[in-house]
């Protein structure tokens, strides 16, 4: 069965990128939401927290953690922001 199996690109920013050692990677996944991607990549981004203070974007638009992830999507994982 390949049902639900999709290919996505995950991009890591700031401390997440430093921890992952890569800025982006292509992953095969059964994740259905952005939250699933965050959990599945925990060893990459290294966050010791739930996703509460982090943000996520999909295909260059801000998304929610419950937003569905589709085959071919690019998921951007943002650690807590600190502009200004």
């Amino acid at each position: 069965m390949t049902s639900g199996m999709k290919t996505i690109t995950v991009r890591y920013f700031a401390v997440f990128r430093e921890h992952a050692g890569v800025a982006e990677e292509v992953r095969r996944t059964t994740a259905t939401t952005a939250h699933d991607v965050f959990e599945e990549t925990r060893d990459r981004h290294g966050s010791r927290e739930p996703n509460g203070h982090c943000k996520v974007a999909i295909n260059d638009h801000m998304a929610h953690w419950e937003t569905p992830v589709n085959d071919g999507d690019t998921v951007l994982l943002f650690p807590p922001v600190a502009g200004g």
Partner: protein
Amino acid sequence: MIEVTRDPIDPFALQQSLANPAAGGYCAFEGWVRNENEGNEVERLEYEAYDPLVIEEGEKVLVEARERFPYLSARCVHRVGLLEIGECAVWVGVASKHRDEAFKACRYIIDEIKQRLPIWKKEHYANGDSGWVNCERCASHGSAAAIAD
């Protein structure tokens, strides 16, 4: 208009771009790199941004600010890269008919920018350590950086 730049910010040129004969009030905010945060001596800051979403989300912020506090013109520039103490990291300028809208819109814009835009700040300390601000529990990195202004 919101922009991300790697070059030093020129507040004077930015301010002039907001000139408007109907404007009676002008409020500007600048975030400067300061030499200390949460008890740590800071030597410089490093800003990283994801430009496409800074622009998209930043434009939303400017529109929201105008809906709440009708202004005549507003602009924001955020700098990225390595910044030294005293340099300007972010500039917000608002011109409006009366001062109340200028103050409130300017404050709204900087508050939202700090909370919503994908921009990250790494502090480089005098002791050689460094740390991503607001990320002390994000990942296993060295320093105890905390929420900055």
